[in-house]
């Protein structure tokens, strides 16, 4: 915790950045003490986390370095932030008198390099704006998470984000080229842009996924891809919910046969009704693929996937136009969040997601046993389901989707009574069957308590990284590595 007073922290920050960039408005501070992990507290405007001393808006890398050096010297906990779309507690200010460093004003696209197929931008560039601009030129980053209308580049890299087209383009870790980041002592490090190198460990992965607990990301170079939506092909099948195991096997078959569709999804019946209720019968799960790429590849991929699926009499093909139109309405933006808040207030019913991953031989057990246990052990559930949306040669993810009524429960208690309990069950089942408790939201603070079980003996490496780069413990404490009680 800081060795100087709250007032001295603000004074010091004003000296570095000037008054305009240092925000101490009470409401802003309260709203900056949490993220969407504590969605119900957010909706009820009840703030249980320590309120930060200030939110500072940084304009360039040197300002980030100066603020971090000041924080390091005075042992002030800092929470790096860009789009504020985190949902696993990564942006909670867990310690008294923290400072939130907001990079959203560092929002310049520095260079679009069409010849080398890469784009360099500052951390606060909104992904939606970047990709829209690139698409006008016929390119895309290939990164399209559901949070695209909210998220910014720094946060996406910090949390090892993944997008809806990951099966073709990969996660953000496959898209990054070089980066610039600032470490807690103020040291600015740049990793150059090269297609590949074998000069020791890939140090980009100290930065990618650090969740603000090791450094502040100021600049990122991402790969570019041709955007050719006119060639997209959509493939969909419905199947009985009791055949979910077969659904996972179908996802596997497509991957194992060597196809790389841009998205590959399996929704169980409960989750499917949230998206396809207009035409999908209750009790039906759904399998979806989209083939993306050059005009001579996508029809071949469509044909190949259909041929594979034709061997399964349990599957019934659906009109691809229905899939295409569903796909156009997938993303979440500020309007949806505002409406969701209104609905939660009115109904006291809340929806949450938790994402995990597993190998082909355990993902079904993870899915089935976690759903069964939650329905058995948690009260007031109104929906329990999920989907797989990112597949790999050796496994896939599971995105649990659950809703519950908040009954006889103060806002401060909701997280213990429901959300953490459900998270715990999911994490326990994942660990039991050998998957990963986090697929793409980051550990945040919500799941940091399971980090030693997640890492096993390799926790030594994570802990050593943290201690080496952040010896004073000022970087987003409680994230990745839990706070000592």
């Amino acid at each position, binding site marked *: 915790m800081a060795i100087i007073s709250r007032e001295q922290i603000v004074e010091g920050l004003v000296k570095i950045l000037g008054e305009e960039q240092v925000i101490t408005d009470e409401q802003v501070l309260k709203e900056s003490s949490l993220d969407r992990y504590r969605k119900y507290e957010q909706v009820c405007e009840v703030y249980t986390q320590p309120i930060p001393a200030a939110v500072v808006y940084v304009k360039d890398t040197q300002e980030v370095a100066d603020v971090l050096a000041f924080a390091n010297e005075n042992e002030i906990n800092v929470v790096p932030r860009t789009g504020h779309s985190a949902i696993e507690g990564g942006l909670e200010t867990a310690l008294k008198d923290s400072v939130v460093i907001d990079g959203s004003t560092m929002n310049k696209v520095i260079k679009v390099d069409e010849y080398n197929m890469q784009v360099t931008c500052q951390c606060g560039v909104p992904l939606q704006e970047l990709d829209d601009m690139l698409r006008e030129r016929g390119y895309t980053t290939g990164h399209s998470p559901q949070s695209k209308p909210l998220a910014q580049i720094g946060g996406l890299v910090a949390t090892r984000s993944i997008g809806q087209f990951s099966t073709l383009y990969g996660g953000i870790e496959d898209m990054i080229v070089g980066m610039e980041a600032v470490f807690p002592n103020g040291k600015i490090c740049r990793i150059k842009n090269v297609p590949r190198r074998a000069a020791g460990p890939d140090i980009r992965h100290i930065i990618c996924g650090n969740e603000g607990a090791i450094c502040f990301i100021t600049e990122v170079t991402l790969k570019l891809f041709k955007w050719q939506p006119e060639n997209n092909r959509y493939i969909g099948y419905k199947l009985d919910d009791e055949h979910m195991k077969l659904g996972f096997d179908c996802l596997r078959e497509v991957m194992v046969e060597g196809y790389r569709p841009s998205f590959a999804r399996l929704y169980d019946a409960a989750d499917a009704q949230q998206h*396809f209720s*207009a035409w999908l019968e209750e009790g039906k799960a759904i399998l979806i693929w989209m083939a993306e790429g050059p005009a001579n590849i996508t029809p071949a991929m469509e044909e190949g996937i259909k041929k594979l699926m034709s061997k399964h009499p349990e599957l019934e093909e659906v009109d691809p136009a229905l899939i295409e139109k569903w796909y156009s*309405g997938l993303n979440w933006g500020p309007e949806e969040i505002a409406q969701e808040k209104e*609905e939660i207030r009115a*109904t006291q*019913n809340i929806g949450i997601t938790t994402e995990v991953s597993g190998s082909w031989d355990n993902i079904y057990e993870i899915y089935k046993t976690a759903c069964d246990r939650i*329905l058995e052990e948690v009260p007031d559930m109104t929906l329990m389901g999920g989907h797989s949306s990112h597949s790999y040669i050796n496994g896939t993810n599971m995105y649990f989707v659950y809703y519950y*009524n908040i009954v006889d429960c103060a806002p401060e208690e909701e997280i213990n009574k429901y959300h953490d309990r459900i998270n715990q069950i999911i994490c326990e089942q994942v660990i039991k069957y050998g998957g990963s408790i986090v697929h793409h939201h980051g550990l945040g603070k919500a799941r940091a308590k399971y980090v030693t079980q997640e890492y096993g003996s390799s926790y030594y490496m994570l802990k050593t990284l943290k201690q080496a780069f952040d010896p004073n413990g000022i970087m987003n404490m409680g994230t990745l590595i839990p706070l000592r009680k």
Partner: protein
Amino acid sequence: MKILGCFKVVPDLDLIVEEDWNKKNQSYVDTGYAKLVWNCFDEGALEMMLRLSDLSEGLNVVYKLSALTIGRQKTEGFLKTLYALGFSEGVRICVETEEDILFSPEMVSEGIANYVKKVEEQDVIITGIQSSDGSNKKTPYLLAEKLEWPCITQVVGMEPMDEDHLQVTAQVPGGYMVRQVKTPCVLAVGNAPCAYLRIPTLKDKMKLGKRPVTQLMPEELGMVEAGESVQLIGLNPIDRKRNTVIIEGDSPEEKARHLYEKYLKGRLSML
């Protein structure tokens, strides 16, 4: 007191892609892929019924809540949700496609009126003031006329009184009017403060939501004849496009100055 909530299941119009709104020379918009939701005014009306029932606890009035919809098989899931919330009767007037009733409030009101006259008598009928897709805004009026019952519109609240009366609050220009209303009556719900229907738990769905829905055919309720008097012959969108200028500038101050100098200064000087 027997209360019938009449509701419509509609496509979520926010999910309709732009090109489907702009297709020319067709008398419908393809909404077949958009997920189904409660019509917003009806949703408020159904929640209002449940709140009335909540308020009656400890009083000597018993409310028997029923619900009726006209639609495809898919709409039965919505009726089963109402079962799980405590409704005692769910009725679907079966049609293969909602397009036939989209712009036919005469047919819809005829079906509901005949259900009340011929199948199950009711004391109160509650419905939303209009649907989000057809937007005819006529069904509650026509229904009241066919039943020869009074109709109160823009209802925003109901409270229990006795077996033959309800206290009904309606929004009127400039305020709210609270009235004691003798049944039978038709109540049309407008911008209700309780716009969202509560969500039943999965356990309640398992326990209460399995009962079969009563299915009736439009012919049984004289709906087909009623629909013959009005036929849709065209749909034309209103062009609401406006010219847009994006103000360029290196800083917010510069953009604000440009906005003021070029677009606002002249107008302000005329005030």
